[in-house]
């Protein structure tokens, strides 16, 4: 079961595509908000939302918002989600955020993540304030009516609470070992 709104972010230390280890604490340190997004390479929902997430990360970076993507998929069943392929994807798309490898899948289980992409947004105190999909239209960015993640970020940065705290995550299932 996924984290409940108001829950603390479970700690982790994971390998980033640049070879360095990234911890939750280092991501939270000084951040006005932190978006943890369970993601992967092969999923069409991830690919459909990828540019939008990159843009959101860039748009909010100046306001102290941090992002990290975590891939927990089993690379044996899905070779496109292997660590070398993660490195290639991050380089190809010039990811403006860490892309972390949850090799044991323990972090995905701790968060209760089930899909890719699945967003967990934490406020400056590390409490979960939004969980779900990035917006309401994976198929076409021009047809989005509800910008869940952007609206949640705007609310958090204004010192309030998101107008929508939870939406069903929409995407591929995480590929468990």
């Amino acid at each position, binding site marked *: 079961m996924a984290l409940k709104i108001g829950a603390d972010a479970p700690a982790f230390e994971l390998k980033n595509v640049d070879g360095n280890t990234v911890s939750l604490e280092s991501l939270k340190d000084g951040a006005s908000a932190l978006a943890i997004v369970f993601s992967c390479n*092969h999923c069409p*929902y991830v690919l459909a939302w990828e540019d939008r997430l990159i843009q959101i990360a860039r748009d909010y970076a100046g306001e102290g918002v941090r992002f990290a993507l975590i891939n927990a998929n089993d690379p044996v069943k899905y070779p496109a989600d292997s660590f070398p392929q993660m490195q290639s994807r991050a380089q190809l798309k010039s990811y403006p955020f860490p892309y972390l490898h949850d090799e044991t899948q323990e972090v995905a289980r701790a968060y209760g993540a089930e899909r890719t992409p699945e967003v967990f947004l934490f406020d400056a105190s590390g409490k979960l304030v939004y969980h779900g999909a990035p917006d309401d239209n994976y198929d076409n960015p021009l047809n989005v009516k509800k910008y869940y993640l952007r609206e949640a970020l705007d609310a958090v940065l204004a010192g309030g609470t998101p107008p929508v705290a939870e939406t069903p995550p929409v995407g591929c299932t995480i590929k468990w070992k």
Partner: protein
Amino acid sequence: MKIEFLYSEDCPSHAPALERLRDLLEQEDLQADLRIVRVETDEQAQSLCFPGSPTIRVDGQDIDPEGTTANPVGLSCRVYRTSDGRFTPLPPEDLVLQALRRAAGRQTSD
């Protein structure tokens, strides 16, 4: 016209994809023998050469034959590309429409 609609439950785009297919059949005033196949196991995916969910075959021909090489056989969600280059899990309307019109012997834009 025979249409196979293959899907796996894990990929949520199958419902809107089936709705899109039915809408286009109605729009084009076409009758089809529509067979809906739920793919549940890797073995079934292999035996059906299933390149991901959803997959639509019209008279045995995939609506996006080139896309089948980009998607490995298995219980994944299938990646489609729109005409303007975007990725989507939903079979693009123009691909479905062209496949239907081709099978019906009607002129297509491709």
